[in-house]
């Protein structure tokens, strides 16, 4: 195929439209994440890590970023950005002025997260990236106050593809960096054994003696996680095969018959549940698992939502009848 034809095919591909349900669910999840996470920073003690040194901050913030436009990283401005992020997050959840709310959430959250790179983690990048992609999407055109009473609307599919691609990129590039002798096959496979003993991230401090009987299990889990993250490009292949299911080929047929996505993402859900049970790594797990939704066509999620709705109404009906 000539370069021009390839480009035309690419332009046409980005014309694809679909229902906004998947993006709307991601919008709701990230609205909750932003509102919940930023509100938590104010519970009990003020977020000193976001203040300038002169205001009791922990670090000299040489570049207050967008906060500089409003007076810098002083408590009043940090508080205003936090209130903005929480309110915008809640508006994203209900889908009220969805695009403006997503912009406000992205602007306020980015402003806060960029203040002090020492006081953050990969969840900051994750949230900022997804908010930016949602901002470009029609995520407010379903399951929202904005779309109430309106007939179902179609939106561009490419923002959903970019979110799914971002998820794959995260898992794959984190795997490429796990070069430690504790992770790689042929090494000691004791990465999880030592990570669970690290006090910084442990949600509950584990006595090493209590986990000693599970050492071989932890070795197996270490190997599984390393292999699973490295195989992230297979998820991309699975999504492509799913999308082109009518084309032939035995590999495509195997991937689709198995629905490889469910196995790959199912392992991910279990892994993130384990992380959240044993460690405190911020909203990273919740964010990545919410991105899993992007791997599903809106028709699939609408069918699930419909089944859930029927189940709930059947329950309510039988409870009322009883």
């Amino acid at each position, binding site marked *: 195929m000539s370069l021009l034809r390839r480009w035309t095919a690419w332009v046409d591909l980005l014309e694809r439209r679909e229902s906004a349900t998947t993006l709307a669910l991601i919008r709701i999840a990230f609205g909750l994440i932003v509102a919940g996470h930023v509100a938590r920073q104010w519970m009990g003690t003020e977020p000193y890590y976001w203040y300038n040194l002169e205001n009791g901050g922990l670090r000299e913030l040489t570049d207050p970023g967008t906060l500089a436009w409003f007076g810098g990283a002083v408590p009043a401005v940090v508080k205003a950005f936090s209130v903005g992020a929480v309110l915008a997050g809640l508006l994203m959840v209900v889908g009220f002025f969805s695009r403006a709310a997503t912009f406000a959430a992205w602007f306020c959250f980015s402003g806060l997260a960029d203040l002090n790179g020492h*006081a953050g983690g990969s969840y900051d990048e994750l949230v900022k990236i997804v*908010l930016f992609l949602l901002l470009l999407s029609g995520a407010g055109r379903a399951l929202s106050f904005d779309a109430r009473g309106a007939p179902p609307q179609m939106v561009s599919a490419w923002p959903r593809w970019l979110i799914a691609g971002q998820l794959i990129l995260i898992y794959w590039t984190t795997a490429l960096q796990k070069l430690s002798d504790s992770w790689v096959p042929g090494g000691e496979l004791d990465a999880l054994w030592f990570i669970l003993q690290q006090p910084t991230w442990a949600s509950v401090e584990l006595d090493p003696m209590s986990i000693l009987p599970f050492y071989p299990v932890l070795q197996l889990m270490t190997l599984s996680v390393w292999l699973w993250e490295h195989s992230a490009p297979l998820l991309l292949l699975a999504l492509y095969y799913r999308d082109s299911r009518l084309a032939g080929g035995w590999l495509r047929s195997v991937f689709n018959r198995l629905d490889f996505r469910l196995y790959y993402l199912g392992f991910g859900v279990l892994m993130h549940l384990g992380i959240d049970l044993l460690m405190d790594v911020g909203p990273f797990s919740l964010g990545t698992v919410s991105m899993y939704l992007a791997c599903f066509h809106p028709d699939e999620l609408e069918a699930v939502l419909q089944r859930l709705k029927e189940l709930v109404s059947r329950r309510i009906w039988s409870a009322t009848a009883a």
Partner: protein
Amino acid sequence: MAERLGWGSRLLRQFRAIFVAFHIVAVCLSAAPAPGAGMNRAAWSDPTVQREFNAWADRLGQDPDSFQDRIWAAAVRFVELRRAVLKPFVPYLRTTGTEQSWQMFVAPHRWPTRLQIQVSRDPRPALSSEWETLFEERSDTATWKAEFFERERMRATVFRWGWPTYAEAYKRGCNALAQLIFEEMPEILTVRCRFSRVQSPGPAKLRAGDKPVVEWRYARVVKRP
């Protein structure tokens, strides 16, 4: 028959295709593995890092010292190349907040540190009995502002303070915490921050019943102004 598009729509389609392609290239290049804070030779002296180098040198049949020198030289060249390739994309990545950094648990920390904050009513405490422990990571008794220190953002901050690369940030952070204590407790005249470091036991050490050795480091004393 396909609907004929006006020039505005055709232009928009082309612009969108260019934008999405540009975004994909930018984020993929930005996500390429990078040593990040690891590009600091002082941090390489940490036993966790040394253990990794020695394990790989051993596996590849190399002399550990020259292996580290070669890795450093290769890393410097790689970082320069990465910077040059990323340069045209940096303004976009920064403005949109789509910079990628996915170094997560690349290697387990085998010598983890714990922050301890102590206070004294004495302006020049000499004896250990003159110090009272106000906060210690994961302690059930020394719990001053424990809820604050348990937030993921504070955990990340304190984790970094335990590395030599972040010595200046630790110094400022300890000063700031001392000011909070002085404001809250008028009777306190001196504050000390320090880190304990203990090697996490492997299964063999644990079975052998080896007692962990606590090493105190980076003690920093702040006096009431």
